[in-house]
């Protein structure tokens, strides 16, 4: 008798608190994911086979969008620009942030001041940073060109020279994000046990040897994280060229995301833009996975 009563009580309790409740808690999330993540993935795939300008009815065009993509010189140029950007952005980001973190990783005065000053651009909107750098990099009245002319050098067309513009943007993006990576490296550096350095010192290792043989391998996970994060961030380059150059000069700063945005919201080629977005997303994932494999092998 006792047992059955206990059993039913347990059962009802379990039914209420164990069975239904978690689903109740999770349901808003599930609805959200269906509407804003899973459905869009399939809808995006669906759109890639259609021509659609939102107003007129959708038209099935098979794989035309994909053929168009592979022949679209401007898209490949945009990808090329994004890669050029990454080529400067990632190494610069790594070196500068690691260097600054290395300097900060010791007992020192004003540590929080330095940390805060490096971090300031990270929290400020990209819009602000872009407007600011637009002034710094201006050809005639820009601060940097003024500095160059005062020390007797020639002006550089930071944003107007087609060969230079994308690299100027890469330097700017590095300036904006480096503070975050300084903090990440600082955390990483502090996990390296000091005994290792002592042992190395006893063996007569130079500072550089210590750095190369102890520090670098120990902070490898941080390096990995920084590379992945700046790769993803770089692939999403949008607002900087949008405000600074609009993609010019000669489409040399047209980033892939900016091109996708233009296809969709300026020319209203929804189907084609979805194709670009889908293709680009797969590309990003592939690059990130390859990087992961490569870096893990290196260790």
């Amino acid at each position, binding site marked *: 008798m006792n047992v059955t009563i206990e059993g039913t009580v347990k059962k009802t309790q379990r039914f209420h608190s*164990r069975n239904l*409740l*978690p*689903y109740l*808690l*999770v349901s*808003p*999330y*599930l609805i*959200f994911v269906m*509407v*804003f*993540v*899973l*459905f869009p*993935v399939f809808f*995006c795939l669906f*759109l890639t086979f259609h021509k659609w300008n939102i107003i007129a009815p959708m038209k099935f065009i098979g794989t035309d969008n994909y053929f168009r993509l592979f022949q679209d010189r401007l898209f490949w140029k945009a990808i090329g620009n994004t890669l050029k950007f990454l080529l400067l952005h990632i190494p610069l980001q790594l070196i500068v942030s690691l260097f600054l973190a290395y*300097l900060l990783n010791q*007992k020192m005065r004003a540590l*929080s001041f*330095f940390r*805060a000053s*490096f*971090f*300031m651009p*990270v*929290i*400020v*909107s*990209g*819009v*602000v940073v872009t*407007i*600011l750098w637009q*002034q*710094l990099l201006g050809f005639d*009245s820009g*601060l940097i060109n*003024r500095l160059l002319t005062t020390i007797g050098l020639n002006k550089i067309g930071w944003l107007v020279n087609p060969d230079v513009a994308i690299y100027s943007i890469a330097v700017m993006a590095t*300036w904006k*994000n480096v503070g*975050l990576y300084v903090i990440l490296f600082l*955390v990483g550096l502090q996990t390296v046990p000091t005994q290792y350095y002592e042992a190395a010192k006893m063996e007569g290792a130079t500072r550089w040897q210590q750095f190369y043989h102890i520090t670098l391998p120990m902070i490898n996970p941080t390096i990995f994280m920084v590379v992945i*994060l700046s790769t*993803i*961030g770089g692939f*999403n380059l*949008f*607002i900087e060229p*949008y*405000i600074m150059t609009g993609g010019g000069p000669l489409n040399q700063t047209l980033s892939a995301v900016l091109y996708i945005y233009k296809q969709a*919201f300026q020319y209203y080629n*929804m189907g084609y833009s979805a194709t*670009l*977005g*889908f293709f680009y*997303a797969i590309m*990003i*994932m592939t690059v990130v996975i390859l990087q992961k494999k490569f870096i893990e092998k290196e260790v």
Partner: protein
Amino acid sequence: MNTLSSLRGTKQCYGRHCEELRGTKQSNLLHIHVYVDRWGLLRQARIDEMIMIRKISIKKLLMYLALTIAAVTFIYPFIWMIGASLAPEHELGKMTLWPVNPGFQNFKSMFEKIPIGRSLINSLLVAVLTTSLVLITGSFVGYALAKMQFKGRQLIFYIIVFTMSLPFQVTLIPNYITIINLRLVDTFFALIIPFAVSAFAILMFRQAFQGLPQALIDAARLDGCTETGIIFRILWPNIKPTVVTVAILTFIGSWNEVLWPLIVVRNENLMTMPQLVTLFSVGGRADSLLGVKIAAAVLLALPVMIAFLFFQKHFIQSMASTGLKD
């Protein structure tokens, strides 16, 4: 002192392992520091002071020099920006850091040209609502995943990881169309709902809740506390750092978001600040008045900068704990 003399071998003391300095012995040029190291052992270290001081000071000097140069490159543009926003237009051509005749003319003409005050309120509203929703939904799902057994738990976990690694380019256009179909274009809902749930927040809360003892929850249940009460009144006070981290990151992300508002909001009165400032500086509305453009940028940056100055430690810890950026 017997232990002291029995310790063989001397080594330079940089203060790194020194937990507590017990004293200094001195003989001629030789200084001997007696200290307790981090493992609690009594140790002594010889310091050839003359050499140490010179070595350290030159190295330190170079280090501070490098750091100061770096700090200036990071801070100078901001100070210049604030100065320029206060400068009359004809003074902008000069390189001076601070204008000779500062005034608020640029801000005045900006307020006349665009509804910037309105957009400030919009941005605040959107960011606050988004942050609250993310905190609530994140806690709910994180709690369920951390502290409850149910069918499909693993599946949900995989979905979350998938969501996090999915580039936004895939969902951008479909979501825009969803917003159109839900007739939400030009509403705050369009700006809030797509960001109301964050996979990252869920994972953060899940991890934090996992670290709390089950007994805490059981005790609260026995006292008749509801499940939402457990989450917000019993568990939240125990995971304050996580709550702060998620709140700061979500708020900043929402405040700085610009691509999505550009897509779903066309009505100037509903625009968020970054969007309005972007359109203002890209379009011809600034009438090529540089000062006004910079004033807009200053107004956009100021709230976050002030918040950062006050809660610097929280900001940096939050960002560092995740490695996430906007």
